[in-house]
């Protein structure tokens, strides 16, 4: 039971790293709290529903599609919303109100078009592209992949695929932040926004890119939400935002890579609590939040980056 819970926790946690990393990137660069983060995640799930329903293909194809769509949405939203917010006296506080409103609007519009019922995608459809390649080029047998064995125990294939995708996304964020010029500028803005502005960095361009990427990453996480949470409704966003926030604070607010660690710690803790104290499992995000704020307010990987 313990080994199963630990492995499940790592897989689940890696996925939660992906859920939270976009939120942290946006906060790190702009110091604004995107309370609509979970709603973009929900919209990512709807991109996956669209890909499966309209095109009838592997929902994995929704990953690049959702990313591109929501990077563009992010760039557009940034232009419309964020500069005015940054110009206000208290952008952090106002961002909470503004993005809460945006969250409500997104949920309401999605409900009008999609209804309130749970929606899902059959697990066997995820990763069919791999089984097709296996059959065509390696002489494999057709049919669903079934559970994947790790340390002699069976885990859902969608969990493993989601965890691998999360690792790739985290690596992408790392490369972006530490191996590209825009990433270097992004880190400069994250470190000291006013100094970055004074040195001539185009803070607006850097912020817009971070906002777009943040939303894109949320949408990628959303593609896997129907597989990780059983089903998704338009109201799914609020819970996802709370959990993301707990993970971000756990890792380190303002440090996107800390989120990766925060996600894994959250995942492992969640699975252990579900195994040994199942009735209390839903308290975990809040308990972790309180503990981390009391014991290590800067988060597990935190330096002196948080000013909020």
């Amino acid at each position, binding site marked *: *039971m313990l080994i199963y819970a630990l492995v499940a926790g790592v897989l*689940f946690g890696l996925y939660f790293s992906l859920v939270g990393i976009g939120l942290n990137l946006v906060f790190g660069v702009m110091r604004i709290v995107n309370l609509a983060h979970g709603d973009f995640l929900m919209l990512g799930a709807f991109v996956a529903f669209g890909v499966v329903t309209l095109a009838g293909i592997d929902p994995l194809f929704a990953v690049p599609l959702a990313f591109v769509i929501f990077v563009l949405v992010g760039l557009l939203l940034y232009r419309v919303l964020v500069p005015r917010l940054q110009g206000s006296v208290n952008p952090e506080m106002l961002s909470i109100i503004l993005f809460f409103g945006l969250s409500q609007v997104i949920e309401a519009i999605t409900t009008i078009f999609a209804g309130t019922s749970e*929606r899902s995608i*059959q*697990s066997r459809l995820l990763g069919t592209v791999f089984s097709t390649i296996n059959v065509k080029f390696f002489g494999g047998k057709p049919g669903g992949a079934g559970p994947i064995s790790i340390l002699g125990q*069976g885990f859902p294939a969608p969990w493993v695929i989601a965890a691998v995708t999360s690792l790739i996304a985290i690596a992408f964020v790392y490369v972006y932040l530490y191996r590209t010029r825009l990433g270097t500028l992004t880190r400069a803005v994250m470190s000291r926004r006013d100094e970055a502005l004074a040195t001539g960095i185009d803070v607006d361009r850097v912020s817009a890119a971070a906002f777009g990427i943040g939303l894109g990453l949320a949408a990628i996480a959303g593609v896997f939400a129907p597989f990780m949470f*059983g089903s998704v409704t338009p*109201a799914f966003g609020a819970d996802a935002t709370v959990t993301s926030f707990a993970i971000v604070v756990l890792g380190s607010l303002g440090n996107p890579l800390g989120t990766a660690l925060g996600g894994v710690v959250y995942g492992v803790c969640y699975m252990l609590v579900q195994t040994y104290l199942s009735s209390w499992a839903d308290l975990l995000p809040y308990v972790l939040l309180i503990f981390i704020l009391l014991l290590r307010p800067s988060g597990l990987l935190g330096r002196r980056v948080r000013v909020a």
Partner: protein
Amino acid sequence: MLKVTGAALIAGLAMATQAMAADAPAEIKIGTLYASSGRFASISMPVYSALKLWANQKNADGGVYVKAFDKKIPVKLVAYDDQSNTATASTLYNQLVTQDKVDLLVADSGSVLTAPAATIARDHKMFLFDQTGTGASFFSKDNPYIALMSDPVSTIWPKPVADFVSHDGPELGIKKIAILYSTNEFTGTQANAFRKFVKDSGAPIEIVYDQGVPTETTNYTVIINNINNTQPDAVFHFGYAPNDIAFLRNVQDVGIKFKMLFCIYPGLETELLEKNVGIKGLEHVFTYVPPSELDYKVNFGMNMKEYKAAWDKAYPEGKIEFGFNAVAGYTTGLIIEKTLSVASSLDQLELRRANFSLSGELKTLDGTFALDEMGGQIGELTPLGQLELDDKNPEKLKFISIYPHETATGKPVYPRP
């Protein structure tokens, strides 16, 4: 003399009728809540939509007959969105009673959102038409202000399931069972009742796993593995629709085949579960047999076939699933209609008396409406059934009624192949 007396009587009667007509309200205000979003939207919207369907149908016909005013009066639904939030629901129930001054109070769907209504109705001495809130704590001898319209009260609902396990289980080889439930009034009560029935039966059944999880749980993989480690002969999961969806999907995903698996919602919201879990994931699952499969003879309102046609006409876009809850909402409408046709005034205790007088007499598409002395529904019992692939159309599922034996349409498939 006789002529004078006759004339006086006629004049008096005419004046009394006029006075009664003048006192009659322009509309009967029925206050209710619905959840357009959140965890309970999928069980709330079908109930609310069905109630709306009933109200529209009646209003198109000039309203409902109200005995208190001896005339047909249109009904007006005063409805607010509680967004599945109990705190919001409390405020809105209060608003319905104190601000809108509704004539009749109807609870939102499910025990979680009925709980605040039960308290508020009692405080304000308003009779609560409880649609599907089956939690046992709502019903007590000292509370005359509530009655359950459409589902069996949770304390007796799982009796056919428990009886099957106790009576037929040992013969089939069921000796060890696992119970998993969501910790809320509805499913918690069902689990408690089921456990008690099994223990009290004295059958040689051992409970090897018995755990509650938060209602918001969306991931059961680790729990399923833990249950599997106890090697149960049968697993009983008591959860709401989203819980059942996640649970059944996770069972499929981890490749574990329990010998017997019972869940509530494959029977109650079959369309919704089929969409989300898939036919393969539901095959051989034990569940409650819904009224739509039993086709009860009715003495009031539409029968199931007519109602389904009316539903499809009213909601052709298919965004709200037709299932147990859609039947429940319409049943509530019928019971309200019948209550108003019997009650001699709109006084809340008179409404209660009228409502209770229907017990055992009223037969709707949901079965026989029968209340116990505390207002718990005891008439609309659902047998235990099993979902199997339809021989004629393997792309569809059909219900096989298993227990009680007198209503059985087939034998259980055990263990699951």
